């Protein structure tokens, strides 16, 4: 064990091969190309196989990390996949979009002195190779079908996780999606260069293989109502309708043509395939000098999409500095490599338009960092009198979202918190309506894919327990 410890810490973390920045900025194909089997074996051998694995407790869905990594090291892909899928219904997604540095990898003991095991990359390696047919993906005997019907409203990460968990236990699950394509944020939000659409499609196929009925164009609160589902014989309902109304800056000129929410810009590109306009009918706004407001992962996605849509320049305007940016380090690095530039310590005052109502510039206020605020980050404050105009013809606002009112207004029995999100029981995920559960962004506000999945799993466990599916 001692020998291995030294060994593991000494082998450097295996780099992820990527498309070269100059090349990838011209396409929407995935940036990170994935480990080869040699790379995966080398990386897996770094794992210390801790008796009390901290990585696992850092994972919202408690993936059995050391166990699956041991199987990768042995070259037993079938077993590695089985272990992954036993707690995670979307491993190919998680391996790509989880903020591992804050979760499993952030807890990895190797990270104390050196670099943590690349758990996310290994997870992706197993999931991708399993679905490519490199191993047996049969999850063992299918559970006998129970007469327990469960409805999941929304088809993003929380709902799909809930659906997958319950279907694997034999429940008859129906997923209702409002848009024309299932997947929620995985499809309309996260760009294909980070999460290819065929990866999502495969995960959906895995659910269909468990007899999950996925219906599109069924809008929660409109085409499908919570009380009616219960009357129709669904024993439990899971609400995972995701984020809603985008937040805007609330400054003059915000409704000029050329000012978009990141949600709209990304939905056009991803769900509407605007990058393939006019082959697909949905266009995106052809801005040349693009300005992105916000500094989270969505802002990075929007900035990188704009580069790929042919922008001459993409500036991210942020009122603090790079050190305070909430986006994942890897996303910021990838964006910068692709030519996105950061404009730190600047805040927008007003948008400026031409006669036809199109955006031509933005007036910015120079900022400086003051004392730390409640979040521990230094509070940005304006530098008195220091304002300047920045030329831009496309502004993308990525400030987060508010709760979507559609299902909430149609379901007044649901107890909401001060911010308008659904109140749920900490341990079960149950809402104020018995046997109605909720999870994901409609409970927490905008958060991560994996946290939504954790919520879906928590609710699914309780539903399984309550209706004898275990």
């Amino acid at each position: 064990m001692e020998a291995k410890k030294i060994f593991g810490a000494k082998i450097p973390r295996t780099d992820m091969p990527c498309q070269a920045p100059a090349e990838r900025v011209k396409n929407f194909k995935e940036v990170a190309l994935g480990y080869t089997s040699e790379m995966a074996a080398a990386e897996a051998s770094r794992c210390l196989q801790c008796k009390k694995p901290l990585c696992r407790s850092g994972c919202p869905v408690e993936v059995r990390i050391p166990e699956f990594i041991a199987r990768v090291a042995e070259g037993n892909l079938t077993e590695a996949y089985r272990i992954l899928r036993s707690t995670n219904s979307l491993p190919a997604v998680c391996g790509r979009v989880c903020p591992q540095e804050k979760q499993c990898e952030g807890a990895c003991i190797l990270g104390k002195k050196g670099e943590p095991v690349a758990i996310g990359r290994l997870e992706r390696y197993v999931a991708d190779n399993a679905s490519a047919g490199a191993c047996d993906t049969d999850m063992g005997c299918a559970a006998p079908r129970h007469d327990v019907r469960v409805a999941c409203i929304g088809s993003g990460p929380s709902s799909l996780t809930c659906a997958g968990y319950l279907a694997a236990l034999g429940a008859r699950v129906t997923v209702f999606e409002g848009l024309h394509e299932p997947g929620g944020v995985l499809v309309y939000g996260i760009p294909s260069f980070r999460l290819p659409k065929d990866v999502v499609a495969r995960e959906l196929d895995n659910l269909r293989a468990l007899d999950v009925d996925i219906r599109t164009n069924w809008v929660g609160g409109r085409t499908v109502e919570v009380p009616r589902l219960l009357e129709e014989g669904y024993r439990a309902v899971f609400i995972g309708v995701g984020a809603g109304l985008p937040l805007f800056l609330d400054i003059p000129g915000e409704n000029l043509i050329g000012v978009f929410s990141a949600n709209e810009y990304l939905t056009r590109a991803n769900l509407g395939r605007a990058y393939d306009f006019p082959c697909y009918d949905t266009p995106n706004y052809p801005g040349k000098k693009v300005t992105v407001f916000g500094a989270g992962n969505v802002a990075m996605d929007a900035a990188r999409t704009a580069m790929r849509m042919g922008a001459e320049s993409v500036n991210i305007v942020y009122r603090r500095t790079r050190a305070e940016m909430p986006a994942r380090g890897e996303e910021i690095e990838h964006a910068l490599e692709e030519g996105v530039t950061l404009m730190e310590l600047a805040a927008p005052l007003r948008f400026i338009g031409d006669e036809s109502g199109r955006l031509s510039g933005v007036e910015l206020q120079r900022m400086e960092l003051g004392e730390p605020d409640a979040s521990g980050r230094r509070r940005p404050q304006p530098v008195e009198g220091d304002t300047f105009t920045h030329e831009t013809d496309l502004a993308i606002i990525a400030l987060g979202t508010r709760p979507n009112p559609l299902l909430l207004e149609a379901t007044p029995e649901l107890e909401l918190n001060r911010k308008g999100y659904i109140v749920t029981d900490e341990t079960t995920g149950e809402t104020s309506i018995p046997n109605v559960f909720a999870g994901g962004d409609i409970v927490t506000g905008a958060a991560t894919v994996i946290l939504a999945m954790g919520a879906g799993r928590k609710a699914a466990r309780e539903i399984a327990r309550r209706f004898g599916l275990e």
Partner: protein
Amino acid sequence: MPTTILHKEKLIPGRTSKLVLDAPHIARTAKPGHFVMLRVDEHGERFPLTIADTDPETGTITIVYLVMGKSTTVLEELDEGDAILDVCGPLGKATHIEKLPAPKKVVCVGGGTGVAAMHHIAKGHHKAGNYVIACIGARSQDLLLFHDELSRFCDEVLVSTNDGSFGMQGIVTDPLKDRLEKDSDIAEVVAVGPVPMMQAVARLTADFGVKTTVSLNSLMVDGMGMCGACRVSVGGETRFTCVDGPEFDGHQVDFAELSKRLSAFRSQEALSLERHKAGHACRCGAH
């Protein structure tokens, strides 16, 4: 699940058609004021259309559209028995309809294909027991929509045509102005149609201090409160047409901004339509 076209009627050949769709799950809860989002085929763009009528018993909804861009051109190429790939709804807030105390009346003004959407609202007011005056206009008699349908239940139908071929000669605000001058019992005016028409109606009714509701046709992407494409300034505040509307107080709407925002993608829309008309084969081979 695609939605089948049960009945198609070319109201103005090549320009405007009416489709009756087999959509029981939408018809069940659709009310006046609601709209649906459609995507005609795999490469299509999502777009909103206001529901012109519903029949919960037969499980159908009716939509009426003006053939204008690529999406409506492709829709117009479909016939009875064909299916629209995606239709979802009902979306938006339903029209606020309440029984008015006699002798109060409501005037429902419609222009262009907006007459169809207005028809559903007028019907709602009629069902609530209100005295309904429909006020519709077109360039000439052959372009007039829904005159017969409205005549069936409206207490009065005021018609104007630009060329005087039917009803009063003039624009739709002319008979409305006439009426407002003569009749002090008009409690509310509802206007649905092209932006300039709704703006003209709102200007006119402001002079008379009559409550006015307009139904806006903003651009939308998802249509369910996710993207903000449809934002509009109402009383100086930004509202979302898809979840806060589509109906707003006509005296508070910034119509100039709305007009501009509707033109955001005009050059791309023109390109799409041009390519379609030229029979352009898509390079991916799917078209």
